[in-house]
């Protein structure tokens, strides 16, 4: 007997892997159209310069060149780039190709469509641009002064300027026994998807119709942004995202994809653009790059009295149209109190535009910014207060019986149990024993360190004023042959929704995941949903699919009851059939049921009065506790679910070489009800590895002149298997009261606390040598420099 909910919670093997692992995936670059041209892009070598002239005549003379576009064409054929998200920000008027000015190294200036990629690249070399270099704004200090302006019309370089306070922070800090205060800088790094951005644009002048195949996380929003950025009627635009080779937040805008679209409009032919790795690193979205000044007051017993923060972000040229990153600083501000009781809280946020690449989203989206300074500071406070760092956290965390918990800064936390997770961490790490070992090995000249970070992962954002506003529809349909289709606006980007959404639907119909096909990534096929961002799948898409499945299951039961002359309440779905519970002889297979409704004899006589033969249901899930109307303190709540965790890193530092080795990495994790443990664990581990990359290796470097120095994977170092220890994951289950299945989106948790845990561990290892590191990534050069400075 198959339980209706049997598939939720099972480690079903991923349906999509057969296709992907046998080379049968279809990515945008695998698609070709007759008459298709290839695009190449001319990019600025200057971080900041006026464009005096662009001469494309040489390129146009080259055989095989069909179209060349510049900023002038972008203005004539399109409109200013549409805004993705505008929350208290200044929005610049910019185009996909530079108009009058370039604002970062790598900014597109002109583009060519030709009969081959080679011809297109040769033609790009023949375009002559006359630049007048301007003083570059590289650092936050440059932007503050300002030595020059990115957008002269603003009169300053601030894109975001926002303050918030609840309670009397000044008194809270003044009344504290100890105040810990520190600047926490964080370097620039980003997600590096295996598949870079790829776009095939096909504009048909005859129909005025545009079809865009693109590697994106959000096809529907891209369709709307294309309509707004081109002045085309949206119903004439189709966006298709087939298999997508990774997103991580970096594929949520159309700034680059507008270029092949404009080339297709200009040439009247299909145009494909395949971004190379240099282009992806120099102009794909960048993230992090901030300094957070944090002051936290503590009583002698370790409990917090108040938190005061000042967060300053280096946003590159833009984080509103070119990409959607600026609001990450606001998410950070709202979540700085983290999982702790904070009696008073104040934060100032400023985001400066600079001559660096666009500021976008990357696994974390500000939740990492909230986490890193606080979790670093907690270990500094533990040392100062002579309280064990896990114990200090235990004394401040929200207790399990306090949920749903109204955090002082606005968010409403749904569920969790930090004290139990802390206890589990102690046990798994054999913590007291580790501390003894640590002392012993230090005497042998081995420097082991342990570092912690508590994790809070707001998931499923619903942000006002833009394309990330947080709702999700799903349609579930039964075919006349008795199989199921799930139509979702959620997008498969490798995270396993073809399996997990199938598990959720299949559970309602007593069928296997192989009887359910998840349809996604085609704006002509699926409802207007919001794609994949903010770990929203298990919050929004799962809930919508579940509710639509329940609704369809009820309709199928009513029809089956009519045919079987039974009561719908007595029917159950089991093994591909619907039957009277306990009477297996009175059953219809789903194929028989579908056939009866649609074919033999058909709907009249099978469908009961009040129902119709349309065997599908659509439900739209909205976050039940999202609040955009500020309360009397000015607080709003954007996230529906909040996975929690305690992370621990054990490292060994070689003081002679400055080398940091990861010895153990332990994750105690709670994402509510887990649909597929195999996939959930992979999400955690993948995120952790990206956090490790940011902590130890990955950096998007600029020199002081604004030149970009990390243009390939020998300068931008990604983690590889030998550096990564087994990530030990332990799940807790605190079901969310705000989703129908108790699930919580959970794709970012791994990335959020990992950098803090690792740097805390490195500082713990080097404590006897009086070394304190405060910069990421923790390169051997930095470790050696700090040791030298301390006289070692």
């Amino acid at each position: 007997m198959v339980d209706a909910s049997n598939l939720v919670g099972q480690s079903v093997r991923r349906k999509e892997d057969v296709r992907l692992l046998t080379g049968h995936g279809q990515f945008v670059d695998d698609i070709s159209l007759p008459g298709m041209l290839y695009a190449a892009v001319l990019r600025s070598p200057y971080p900041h310069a006026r464009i005096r002239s662009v001469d494309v005549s040489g390129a146009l003379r080259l055989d095989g060149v069909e179209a060349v576009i510049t900023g002038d064409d972008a203005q004539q054929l399109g409109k200013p780039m549409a805004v993705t998200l505008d929350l208290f920000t200044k929005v610049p008027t910019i185009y996909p190709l530079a108009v009058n000015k370039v604002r970062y190294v790598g900014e597109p200036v002109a583009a060519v469509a030709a009969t081959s990629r080679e011809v297109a690249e040769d033609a790009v070399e023949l375009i002559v641009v006359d630049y007048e270099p301007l003083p570059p704004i590289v650092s936050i200090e440059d932007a503050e002064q300002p030595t020059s302006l990115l957008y002269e019309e603003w009169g300053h370089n601030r894109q975001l300027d926002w303050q918030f306070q609840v309670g009397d922070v000044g008194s809270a800090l003044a009344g504290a026994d100890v105040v810990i205060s520190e600047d926490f800088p964080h370097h620039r790094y980003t997600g590096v998807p295996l598949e870079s951005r790829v776009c095939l644009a096909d504009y048909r002048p005859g129909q005025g119709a545009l079809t865009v195949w693109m590697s994106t996380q959000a096809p529907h929003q891209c369709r709307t942004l294309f309509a707004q950025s081109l002045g085309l009627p949206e119903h004439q635009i189709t966006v298709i995202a087939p298999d997508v080779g990774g997103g991580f937040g970096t594929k949520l805008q159309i700034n680059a994809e507008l270029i092949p679209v404009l080339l297709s409009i200009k040439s009247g032919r299909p145009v494909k653009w395949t971004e190379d790795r240099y282009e992806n690193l120099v102009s794909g979205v960048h993230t992090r790059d901030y300094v957070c000044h944090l002051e936290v007051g503590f009583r002698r017993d370790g409990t917090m009295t108040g938190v005061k923060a000042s967060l300053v972000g280096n946003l590159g040229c833009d984080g509103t149209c070119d990409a959607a990153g600026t609001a990450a600083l606001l998410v950070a501000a709202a979540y700085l109190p983290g999982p702790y009781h904070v009696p008073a809280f104040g934060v100032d946020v400023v985001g400066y535009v600079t001559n660096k690449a666009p500021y976008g989203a990357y696994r974390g989206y500000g939740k990492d910014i909230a986490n890193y300074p606080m979790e670093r500071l907690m270990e500094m406070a533990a040392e100062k207060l002579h309280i064990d760092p896990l114990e200090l956290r235990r004394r401040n965390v929200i207790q399990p019986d306090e949920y749903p918990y109204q955090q002082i800064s606005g968010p409403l936390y749904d569920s969790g149990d930090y004290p139990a997770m802390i206890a589990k961490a102690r046990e798994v790490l054999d913590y007291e024993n580790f501390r003894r070992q640590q002392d012993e090995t230090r005497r042998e000249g081995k420097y082991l360190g342990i570092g912690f970070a508590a994790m809070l992962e707001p998931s499923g954002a619903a942000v006002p004023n833009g394309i990330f506003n947080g709702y999700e529809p799903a349609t579930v349909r039964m075919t006349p042959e008795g199989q199921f289709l799930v139509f979702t606006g959620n997008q498969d980007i490798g995270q396993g929704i073809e399996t997990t959404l199938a598990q959720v639907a299949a559970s309602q119909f007593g069928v296997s995941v192989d009887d359910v096909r998840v349809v996604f990534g085609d704006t002509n096929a699926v409802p207007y949903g919001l794609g994949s961002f903010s770990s929203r799948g298990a919050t929004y898409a799962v809930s919508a699919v579940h509710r639509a499945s329940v609704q369809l299951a009820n309709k199928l039961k009513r029809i089956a009851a009519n045919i079987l002359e039974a009561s719908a309440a007595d029917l159950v779905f089991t093994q591909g059939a619907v039957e009277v519970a306990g009477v297996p002889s009175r059953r219809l297979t789903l194929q028989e049921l579908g056939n009866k409704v649609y074919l033999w004899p058909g709907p009249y006589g099978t469908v009961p009065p009040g129902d119709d033969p349309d065997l599908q249901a659509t439900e739209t899930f909205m976050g039940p506790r999202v609040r955009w109307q500020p309360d009397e303190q000015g607080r709003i709540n954007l996230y529906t679910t909040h996975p929690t965790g305690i992370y621990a890193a054990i490292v060994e530092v070689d003081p002679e070489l400055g080398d940091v080795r990861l010895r153990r990495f332990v994750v105690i994790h709670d994402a509510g009800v887990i649909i597929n443990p195999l996939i959930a664990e992979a999400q955690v581990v993948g995120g952790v590895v990206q956090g490790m990359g940011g902590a130890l290796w990955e950096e998007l470097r600029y020199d002081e002149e604004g030149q970009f120095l990390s243009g390939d994977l020998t300068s931008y170092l990604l983690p590889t298997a030998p550096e990564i220890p087994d990530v030990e994951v332990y799940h807790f289950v605190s079901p969310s009261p705000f989703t129908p299945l108790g699930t919580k989106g959970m794709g970012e948790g791994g990335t959020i606390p990992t950098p803090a845990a690792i740097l805390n561990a490195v500082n713990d290892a080097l404590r006897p040598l009086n070394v304190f590191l405060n910069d990421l990534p923790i390169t051997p050069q930095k470790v050696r420099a700090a040791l030298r400075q301390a006289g070692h």
Partner: protein
Amino acid sequence: MRLQGQEQIEAPIQTVFTSLTDPRVLSKTLPGLQSLEPTDANTYRARLSVGIAAVRGAFDGMLILRELEPPTAYALYMTARGAGGVVEVTLRVHLAEDANSVTRIEYTGEAALSGVWAALGSRMASGVAQTLIRQFFTALRQEVRSLASAATS
């Protein structure tokens, strides 16, 4: 990127200085140079094609010799643009002749890379610069030798 080094050429200082500042000699000795046309006194329009490791491509540029103090010193300024970016070189060059009529050349200066060159080439730029400078002086020595033998024959 800092450029610094010294070279020796077995020729009198006047010959070496003349060769280093003579466009006819430079057009034969600058690595990858395709054309060098004077546009003004001591100012030349240059077309180069350079290909070493990731740094390859065609450049359009300007070569200016200035602060000429024959035969002991001059400054060289070069800017070259290609699709991949811009290279700017500023060099101070000092010459001195020893008792054996060997001229010692000391140069110090800066090279700035931008665009793709900076992003892909920075790590190997100093190696590329050294290779190009070595190629230049090897060619220059040959040129000075052939000038000397032409003068004596």
